[in-house]
């Protein structure tokens, strides 16, 4: 398949179309770069491969003393929570001291609701959801339109209090949640399920009729509802795009084992990470959010040996959960936050294991690890310690930087340096943080 390795995008595109038996389908340019043996983009120059972004979420929050390295600069000592990242020292940059000021705006909701909306979007909780688009969506709006999926939302643990702001991390806009796909089998089917040309043509005709229906209905509505219908329309167009561009001829992904325990979160997390890595490698999307545990989450941790209470219970002293200010409670929290980092490290490792161009997928990816509260027990919403990973945008790695900016200031740096999103502003940001990227 040497043809695929050339920079002439039209060639594989023609081949691709021929295989569809003459059905003309508008393929996004990226699809032209897929090949059959799974080494997507092999031989292409690094600079030509688009970068990707992952916003990774850890519910409830962390314990600062087990998380924040004592030293800044490159010689910092890995803390107990960050220990799983030791093999990836040269792939990460720890940024601490970040503020989440919108969490303190007076308004409805508890601390979890407020911090979550503020952390994701720099805006105030509306009483129902986020007050604006989350950072992954702000980026996707600028860079996502060339791909089969503008963005992907993945989730793992489902245990939560059930409210919208607690169950979703990605927001298309004011009160517009984008629910994560929690089941690896369904995600696999979306990404790699086989489709034939007749099916695509049929689907397209149906969706055309549906879009015309929506346009007709718009006339009967007020302005607010027209906006909502527009969002519905845009979702239909997203479906159409995902259908119109056939899944790539990308053969290295096996469907996840449908028989396994669907509540075994470490297992599900790894399956989701594998699929995400392959989705990136096959050029299906450039933006993803990954919700490992829920906001104010209630995950149980049998694999860590903690079954007496749930994630949120452990962050406070709650019944038999010993709680932050008891020594054994801190140990529990340390193990829980380390597990979150462990799964994050797994994804980093996975991205690093896939060859791409003259490097690996990790070279062209930027991952941002965020957690709900800077300190879980007292719902601290300033002094966040976040992790940036991957080499997109020339991340300065093996570093710990203490900053005084806001989380949104860091978002701007990632959006612009790593993703080239050209984002001039984002709520709660005053200026792009410097010194994180080369």
């Amino acid at each position, binding site marked *: 398949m040497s043809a695929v390795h050339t920079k002439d995008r039209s060639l594989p595109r023609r081949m691709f179309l021929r295989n569809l038996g003459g059905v003309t389908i508008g393929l996004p340019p990226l699809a032209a770069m897929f090949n059959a043996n799974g080494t997507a983009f092999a031989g292409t120059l690094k600079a030509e491969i688009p970068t990707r972004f992952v916003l990774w979420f850890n519910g409830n929050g962390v314990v600062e003393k087990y998380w924040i390295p004592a030293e800044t600069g490159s010689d910092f000592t890995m803390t107990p929570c960050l220990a799983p990242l030791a093999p990836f020292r040269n792939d990460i940059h720890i940024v601490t001291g970040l503020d989440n000021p919108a969490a*303190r705006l*007076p308004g409805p*909701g*508890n*601390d979890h609701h407020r911090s979550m909306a503020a952390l994701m979007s720099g805006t105030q909780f509306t009483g*129902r*959801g986020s007050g604006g688009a989350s950072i992954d969506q702000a980026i996707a709006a600028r860079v996502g339109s060339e791909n089969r999926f503008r963005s992907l*939302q993945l989730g793992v643990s489902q*245990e*939560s*209090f*059930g*409210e*919208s702001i607690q*169950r979703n991390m990605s927001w*298309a806009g004011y*009160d*517009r*949640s*984008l*629910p994560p796909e929690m089941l690896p089998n369904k995600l696999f089917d979306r990404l790699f399920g086989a489709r034939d040309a007749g099916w695509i043509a*049929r689907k397209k*005709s*149906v*969706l055309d*009729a*549906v879009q015309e*229906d929506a346009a*007709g*209905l718009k*006339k*009967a*509505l*007020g302005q607010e*509802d027209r906006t*909502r*219908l527009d*969002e*519905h329309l845009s*979702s*239909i167009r997203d*479906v159409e795009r*995902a*259908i119109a561009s056939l899944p790539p001829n990308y053969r290295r992904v096996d469907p996840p084992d449908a028989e396994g325990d669907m509540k075994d979160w470490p297992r599900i997390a790894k399956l989701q990470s594998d699929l995400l890595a392959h989705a990136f490698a096959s050029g299906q999307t450039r933006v993803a959010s990954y919700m490992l545990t829920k906001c104010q989450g*209630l995950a149980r941790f049998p694999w860590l040996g903690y*079954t*007496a*209470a749930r994630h949120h219970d452990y962050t*406070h*002293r*709650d*019944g*038999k959960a010993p*709680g*932050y*200010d*008891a020594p054994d409670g801190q140990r529990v929290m340390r193990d829980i936050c380390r597990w979150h980092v462990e799964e994050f490290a797994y994804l980093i490792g996975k991205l690093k294991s896939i060859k791409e161009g003259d490097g690996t997928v990790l070279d062209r990816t930027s991952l941002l690890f965020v957690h709900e509260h800077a300190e879980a027990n*007292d*719902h601290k*919403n300033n002094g966040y310690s976040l992790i940036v990973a991957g080499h997109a945008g020339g991340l300065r790695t093996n570093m710990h930087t203490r900053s005084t900016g806001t989380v949104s200031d860091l978002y701007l740096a990632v959006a612009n340096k790593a993703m080239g999103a050209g984002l001039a502003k984002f709520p709660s940001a005053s200026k792009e943080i410097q010194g994180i990227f080369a």
Partner: protein
Amino acid sequence: MVVRIAILFLAILLLLLAQKDPRSPGPDYFAKQVLPVLHKANCEGCHNSGGGVAAGTRFKIPEGELSKEEWARFGLSLHTLVNRADPTQSILLNKPTKRLAHAGGQRIVPGSADEAVLRTWTDYLVSNTKPTDKFEIAERRGDRKPVLRRLTNTQYNNTVRDLLGDDTRIAEQFPPEDFVNGFRNQFQSQSVSPLLAEAYATGAEKLAKSAFRGGDTRGLVPCKDTTPKCGARFIKEFGKQAFRRPLLENEQGRYLKLWAMGGAPMVVEGMLQSPNFLLRTENGAEPSWQPYESASRISYAFWNSMPDTELFRAAAAGELATPEGVEKQSRRMLRDPRARHTVDEFTAEWLRFDSLAAAVKERGSFPMYTPELALAMTEEARKLVEYLVWENVNFMELYSADYAFVSTPLAKLYNVPPPAEEFGRVALPAETERSGVLGQAMLLAATAKPSETSPTARGLFVREHFLCQEVPQPPPGVNANLPLNSREKPMTNRERLAMHLSNESCASCHTLIDPIGFGFEKFDAVGQRREKLKIVFTAERKEKGKTETVLLDLDTSGSIAGAPNSAFRSPRELGTILAGNTQCQQCVVKQLFRYYQGRMEKPGDAATIRRSYDDFKKSGFHFQELMVSLLRWSIFPPES
């Protein structure tokens, strides 16, 4: 350039002129200066015309968007809180500064600049108003703004069941719905994400395929050929069912194209993804759809499903244009078993059955707590509501019933004789101190921690779910951990929670919550009765295995701050109070309103809620009457 500079100067000059001297306030001083101070103190957290805990006091900040003039009128209306003889003695000043007892605590620091602003306004009111002045803000008419509502997953399942005869409940595969405003059907949060749109596409394809597997076995197509004529007939007839209104001409043409490509299955696949199927409008701009919108409002309110043939007929015949017509159809639909499922869903969401499913209980202390027992707990709650609603019993017995519908394991947990049949009725003797939902393990367990009760969570549940009152959330950054129990100083929850009540910033809200929860203290984390609080201390490492048990007396005296004569000492006594409490009775109406309308009530809905409440009360609190009345007043909002 010169012109620009001149314009700039002029603008600055005008701005300066517009800035009045703050020491001599005008009527707009309230909106500009006072309102921000009240906002900063979060007065509206409790004093709001919606569900705030202080909604019953003389000071209520209106909700919703008010015009400039309306805010000015509201500011002037505060003259009733001013002491004209001695303005320094005005409660407008002395409540928020807590010089006078204030359940909400000290919200404004005495002597601060904020108080000075309030003082300025007090003086303005003294000199610019008369005691007899009335500054009422006109009540808003129930708004008839167009509303777009998406079928909930339940409604989707029921609708395809009634439309296609498909009862595979395929929407259970869709992304689960989240809670907002206490329910899963609130339209402000019903976005159609790409993931959901994909699920709709996949669902439609599957449903269409299985509807015509082995031919048209369900008789959906009225004719048996593939001609456009047959297609047109099918599209017209089936389309009216699917879109719940007659199709427009261009819509018919659109689907005729699909018919030509793939016959009836393709038409069905398309219609099931159409916004005309997935969404329904209320008060839409198309006048000819109005009767059909009403038909859908009735059918989704009572059945969570599409209108049936009779309802379509009534819509076409114009019978739904009057309250009487709507009421007649409502009563007919109530008699169908489908109405029962709707009440079940309302109950499960209102009482948050899901939180019990997510609960964990410490195995050592509560070995009897199994998933089966948790299910029995929610079933008991469902059974009680079912009985009250469908046997036409006074619905307020939800709180005061001295009987229960329990399984044998639940009877054992409650220490009452087992029922004759599973979930049969048993009496709750007075000494159980249980009554209605307040004594149910469902509520007692869901509002408790893994091994200990939480008077705070129980108090909050009563405030929010049964009194429809919002209690402000704790300020950010508060360490909410209560003091630990130690062998040296074992404490009851009341003693541990005393911290809340002695700390000013905690007390302002916790005095509203915790004292309600204290009345439940004789019921443990799974809803079992206990006479004393048992605390087990595990020994230090060297003397491993040894435990020490301490038994503490429980003081269960509680009260509902703000409600007169509300002292109680058990769930049973609380039940009697709540059953007769107007706010609690009205809260039933509000909860059903939120579920019916898919949104929170707004100031403009006051008349609808009041009229429905009047009907509810007049009927002897029969829930079926409330269902009928509330829908009637929702479709035809009263003038006052």
